[in-house]
């Protein structure tokens, strides 16, 4: 380590790490600021109690969904060719859930009592189910990643016996895949149900959100895994990225997007077929109101339609940059969807005084502290993924393995 510090020079890798460290430092500072001063320094209000942090929390969980999808594919369906991708996805999953927990820690009013979620059980609450699933799935992901951490050369040199034990946990992978599948299917959809059960905000929130969150998470999670893999392959030409498997998964992703697009349109238009007052106002708000740009361009056009075409057409997919752009659009589209879902129900509420639903346009723009702390957490995620690619050799066959596990 010290020897490396001495031979410090400015190359792109060091610049990248330095940039991330600066962001992380800024994020930690503003996080401490939030803990000291309280949530009063955010722009959250009693009308819009959930904002940027919750959106990014939902997004990082959804973008981690590649872990359970690909692990189930490899260990349950026996698609062994996706093993490298599954390894990457599991590591991204661990990172994503770590990020989600940090976002939640910032967001709750009493971070000193976060453990109450595990002690006091209200099993009627969807959010309780989400808390339990996230806690348990984080453990599953940690177990799934033990063989990955065993690829760290430093660890291999220092603690060879420990590394042997960590590699042995690979035997449990199929069981972990089952556990991961069950837990993920539960909470990925329950995050949508978290909004879906809110009868107080009837315009956009209804039980169908559970299915939409699940399908969009599968698409987003796979896109995130592919995106990281493709970027890593571009930056480090030494990596042998298996083009064929990537292409196969990309086609699957394209079809997943088509399904998601169908469900999304069904969701958009089905909500107008109702006698319940206010549904059309909600539809109007989303399609023509303040969120319409986000919806038509962020979600539908760039989030689903264009990437689906690129991913399904082989000749477009061949172009690395176009392919990468499509994957980034899917990831961006998922974040846009989570943002819209979070905001739209809070913007239009039913007045308690009458049965008429009054669209109420709340203006929420995240405060500086929210933005900087979020940037810090995202930088932490990127830092971890960079570490994984460089030191855990996630995307290569282990070149210096003493054991035969790859």
């Amino acid at each position, binding site marked *: 380590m010290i020897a490396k510090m001495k031979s410090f020079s400015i190359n792109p890798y060091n610049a990248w790490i330095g940039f991330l460290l600066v962001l992380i430092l800024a994020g930690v500072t503003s996080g401490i600021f939030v803990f000291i001063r309280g949530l009063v320094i955010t722009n959250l209000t009693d009308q819009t109690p959930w904002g940027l942090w919750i959106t990014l929390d939902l997004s990082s969980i959804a973008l981690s969904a590649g872990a359970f999808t690909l692990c189930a594919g490899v260990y349950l369906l026996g698609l062994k060719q996706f093993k490298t991708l599954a390894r990457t996805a599991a590591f991204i999953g661990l990172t994503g859930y770590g990020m989600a927990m940090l976002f939640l820690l910032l967001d709750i*009013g009493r971070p000193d009592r976060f453990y109450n979620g595990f002690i*006091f059980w*209200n099993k009627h*609450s969807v959010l309780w189910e989400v808390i339990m699933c996230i806690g348990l799935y984080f453990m599953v992901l940690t177990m799934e990643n033990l063989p990955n951490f065993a690829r760290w050369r430093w660890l291999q040199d220092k603690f060879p016996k420990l590394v042997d034990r960590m590699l042995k946990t690979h035997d449990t992978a199929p069981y972990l895949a089952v556990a991961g599948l069950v837990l993920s299917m539960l909470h990925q959809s329950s995050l949508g149900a978290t909004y879906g059960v809110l009868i107080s905000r009837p315009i956009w929130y209804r039980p169908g959100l559970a299915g939409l969150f699940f399908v969009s998470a599968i698409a987003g999670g796979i896109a995130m895994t592919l995106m990281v893999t493709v970027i890593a392959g571009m930056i480090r030409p030494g990596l042998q990225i298996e083009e064929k498997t990537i292409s196969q998964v990309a086609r699957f992703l394209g079809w997943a997007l088509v399904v998601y697009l169908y469900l999304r349109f069904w969701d958009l238009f089905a909500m107008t077929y109702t006698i319940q007052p206010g549904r059309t106002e909600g539809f109007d708000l989303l399609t023509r109101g303040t969120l319409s740009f986000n919806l038509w361009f962020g979600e539908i056009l760039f989030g689903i339609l264009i990437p689906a075409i690129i991913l399904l057409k082989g000749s477009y997919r061949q172009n690395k940059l176009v392919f990468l752009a499509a994957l980034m659009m899917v990831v961006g589209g998922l974040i846009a969807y989570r943002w819209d879902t979070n905001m739209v129900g809070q913007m239009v*509420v039913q007045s308690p005084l009458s049965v008429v639903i009054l669209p109420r346009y709340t203006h929420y723009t995240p405060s500086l502290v929210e933005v900087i702390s979020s940037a810090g957490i995202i930088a932490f995620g990127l830092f971890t993924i960079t570490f994984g690619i460089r030191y855990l050799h996630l995307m290569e066959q282990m070149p210096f393995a003493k054991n035969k596990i790859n």
Partner: protein
Amino acid sequence: MNRREFLKLTLALIGSFAGHKLFGKFSFAEAHTNAKNGAHKWGMVIDQNKCNGCGFCVKACQASNDINPEMAWNKLYSSTKVGKKEIFTPVSCQHCENAPCVSVCPVGASYYRDDGIVMMDYERCIGCRYCQLACPYGARSFNWDTFSGPNPTIPEWGEPDIERRPRGVVEKCTFCFQRIDRGLAAGLTPGVNKAATPACVNACPMNARIFGDLTDPDSPVSKALKKSPAFRLLESLGTGPRVYYLPPQPVGEENNT
């Protein structure tokens, strides 16, 4: 005991703990979320014919419960006009029979008391604010900041009889449970004796607010509900509020009861 046995035993213990929590009869969460049938069911009636929008109830509430001036448990809306008369709707926690806030709270910090009051356990609340999204009445306020300054409504509008809530928890109207509990212990009847009645009811100069036990046919609320038609806010949602409103009568037909 070898390691395998130890692991099995540990897993069995964790499993039985989880099973007990989920299906057990004496689960702590169960006691919090399922209201038993207590001797009383407290309710409130607000007569919109009498309410003139003076806002005394709001101030009495702020003082008696020592609420941050930037927050409110009791809100006064000007809802409509009947003839030339402005009609007001004061809205506080409706103490619903099927409260959305209680069912969504992940830690069971919102719970039903046996007497129907929807209560907050401020020690348990983690401040996730999900209940604020769930409440159709906007009855819940979050402590965004520590309330350390003086309360401007004290002592003019009353003396606080519960302690301030810490920063980072959600709070709401409790029907002044402290006055009810103390009053009952002293043999008083809430709704009849002032010392056992919520502060907003006592403060109303127009006697527009009536309080009492909904299960007791002789209580002031039961009598008022027998006498005239009443409605509840957003009844169609199925929340079953325990705050009733007597709708304004058309001009000329005002009943002076």
